[in-house]
C-alpha cells in the first residue's frame, strides 16, 4: 500500500526552481530515502509533504489526504524531525516533549508516561529535567526524534537525521531508525546526503539532483545499473568520444569531467591491462587508475558526472534562511 504519493511536484521560490517535477511513492512500513547533494531539493520536497510549504504545482497525497486541501489531516499522521534544530533551548527535554504533546491535543498521565518512555527509548531519561541548551548535538537530535514519535505517528519524516553528528551518535540514530521499522513497522521517509546512510538504512532510495529524481530503486538495483566493476582512468588531456569505441569487452564507456573516463566492465582485473595498453598506444598519458565495485557514489557519478562527495564540499548548506 502506498502511504505517500507524490506526483509531478514542482516548487519555485522567487527565482530558484528548487523542485522540478518530482514523483515517487512511499510504501507502508518501508524506509524510503531521498539521497542527494546540497540544494538538490530534498528539504523542500519534505516540507511540502509535511504541509509547511505549498507546491507551485503537482500533488501530494498522504494516506488518501491531499496535503494542500486537508493539511490538518496530514499533520496528524506525521511526525517530523527537521534538518535544522527546532527545540526550545531554554526549556527542559521534558517540557519540550510536554508542549509538543499538548499542541497535538494530548494531556494527563498518559502523556507523562509516554514522554518518559520515549526519553528512555532515546537514552535521555536521566536528562529529562535538564535544560536543552546544555545538551550535545547528538542528544538534541535524539530528543527531536523522541519528540517526533510522541504522538505515535503513522509516518516519521527525518530530514538529514545524522547531519553534524559524531560516528557514535550516528550509529545510535541508525539503531533507533532500524528499531522503529522492525519492531513497530513504522513508515519512514528520510533525506540524507550520506551514501552510507542511505545504503545502510533505506529499503528504497531516490537519488535527487537539481530538483529532479534521477534514479530510484533498492540499493542493489541502483548498483546493478552499472555492472560488476567500474574503472576510472584519468588522462593527461581530454579524449574524444571516439576513444570509447576502441575498447573491447567494455559494457559502457563515458567521458566525464577533467579527462576522466568511466568504464563499466564485467571484471576489472581481466580487462584493465588491455585497456591501459590501448590508451597508451593512442598517445595518452595515464595520470591515475582506479577501479571499484560500484557503490552509490559510482551510481551518482555515473548519472551526473560529478562525485556526490565533491558536490558536498562545493557548497555549504544554506543556513538561517530567515536572514536576508
Amino acid at each position, binding site marked *: 500500500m502506498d502511504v505517500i504519493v507524490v506526483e509531478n511536484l514542482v516548487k519555485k521560490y522567487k527565482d530558484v526552481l528548487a523542485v522540478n517535477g518530482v514523483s515517487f511513492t512511499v510504501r507502508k512500513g518501508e524506509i524510503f530515502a531521498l539521497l542527494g547533494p546540497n540544494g538538490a531539493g530534498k528539504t523542500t520536497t519534505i516540507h511540502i509533504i509535511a504541509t*509547511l510549504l505549498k507546491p507551485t504545482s503537482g500533488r501530494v497525497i498522504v494516506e488518501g489526504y491531499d496535503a494542500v486541501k486537508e493539511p490538518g489531516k496530514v499533520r496528524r499522521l506525521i511526525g517530523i524531525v*527537521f534538518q535544522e534544530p527546532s527545540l526550545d533551548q531554554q526549556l527542559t527535554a521534558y517540557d519540550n516533549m510536554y508542549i509538543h504533546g499538548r499542541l497535538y491535543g*494530548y*494531556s494527563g498521565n*498518559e502523556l507523562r508516561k509516554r514522554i518518559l518512555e520515549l526519553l528512555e527509548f532515546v537514552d535521555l531519561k536521566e536528562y529529562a529535567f535538564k535544560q536543552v541548551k546544555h545538551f550535545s548535538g547528538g542528544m538534541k537530535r535524539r530528543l527531536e526524534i523522541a519528540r517526533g514519535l510522541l504522538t505515535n505517528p503513522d509516518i516519521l519524516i527525518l530530514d538529514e537525521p545524522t547531519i553534524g553528528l559524531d560516528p557514535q551518535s550516528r550509529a545510535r540514530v541508525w539503531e533507533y531508525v532500524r528499531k522503529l521499522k522492525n519492531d513497530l513497522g513504522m513508515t519512514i521517509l528520510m533525506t540524507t546526503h550520506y551514501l552510507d546512510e542511505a545504503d545502510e538504512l533505506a529499503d528504497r532510495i531516490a537519488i535527487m539532483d537539481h530538483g529532479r529524481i534521477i534514479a530510484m530503486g533498492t540499493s542493489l538495483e541502483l548498483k546493478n545499473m552499472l555492472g560488476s566493476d567500474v574503472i576510472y582512468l584519468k588522462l593527461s588531456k581530454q579524449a574524444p568520444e571516439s576513444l570509447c569505441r576502441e575498447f573491447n569487452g567494455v559494457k559502457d564507456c563515458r567521458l566525464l569531467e577533467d579527462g576522466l573516463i568511466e568504464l563499466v566492465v564485467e571484471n576489472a582485473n581481466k580487462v584493465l591491462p588491455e585497456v591501459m595498453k590501448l590508451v597508451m598506444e593512442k598517445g595518452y598519458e595515464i595520470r591515475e587508475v582506479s577501479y571499484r565495485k560500484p557503490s552509490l557514489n559510482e551510481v551518482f557519478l555515473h548519472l551526473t558526472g560529478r562525485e556526490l562527495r565533491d558536490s558536498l564540499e562545493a557548497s555549504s548548506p544554506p543556513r538561517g534562511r*530567515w536572514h536576508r
Partner: protein
Amino acid sequence: MRRVNLSPLIAMVYRQVKRWFSARSRLVSTVLNPLVWIIFLGLGWGSVFSASGFKGALPGIPTPPGLSISDLVQKYFNTIFGGVDYLTFMVSGMASMTVFLASFIGGISVIWDKQFGYLKETLVAPASRKLVIAGRILGDAIVTTVQGLIVILLGFIIASGLRIAGVGIALIYLFLLAITFSSLGVVIALKLSSVEGFQMIVNLLTMPLMFMSGVFYPFTTMPSWMQVIALYNPLSYAVHAVRYWLTGADVGLSPMTPLNDLLVLAAGATILLLTAGFAFEKTSIEE
C-alpha cells in the same frame, strides 16, 4: 489519550510561563528599569512639585490674607496631580508602563522562534493556529501582568498614597493592556525576520507612546495636539484607570472614566488579538 480542545492554547501558555521562569535576568531587568525611573524621576521631581519645604515669601508678591504661599502652591500641585503627591502619581503610572514595555517587546520571541526553528514546530502541529498564537499572547500577558504587580508592590514601599484595595481591579486593566501590546508585538514580529528590525520599530513607538500616556505628567497640562494623540493611545486608558484604582486620583481627559477605560482596553485587546490570529494563520516558512 484524552483529546482536549484548548490543549494547544495551554501548551503555549505553559511554554511562555516556563520560559519566563528560566530567564531570571529578564525578571530583574523588568523590575530594575521602572525602579530607576521611580528613584531618579519620581524622587527628583517629587520635591520640586511640593511646597512643604517652602517657608518664606516670594519677593515682590504680597502674601494673600489668610493663606500662606506654600499652602497655595501645594493646592495647585494637588489639583494638577489629582490630589496626590507627585511620587504617588508617578509610581501609580509606572505599573502600566512596565506592562506596556514588557508585553510589547515580548514579540521579539516570535523572531527568535523563526531563527531557532521553533516556529516550524508550531506550524506543523495539527492545532488551530489561532489557538496557538492566542496561547502565546495569553502566556506573555500573564507574565507581564505579574511584572506589573511586582512594580505595584514596590510602589507601596516607595510612595505613600497607594491603596491596597485597588490592586486587584488594577490588575484587570493591566492584563488587558498586556494582551493589547503583546498582540501588537506579535503582529509586527510575524512580518519581520530580523531582531534588529523589530527592536528598531518597537523603540521608535515606545518612547512617544510612553510620554503621551500620562505616566510622567497629567493629560490636562499637555499641549492640545499631544492630548489628541494621547486619546488614541491605549496605554493612556490603562494609566488613567490604574492610577484611579490605586490612588483615587481621577486625572484624565474627558472620555476617560474607569468604565470607559475598561471598554477601550477590552476592545483594543480583542481587535489586536484577532489580528494576531489572522496574521499567524497566514504565516508560512517561506519569506
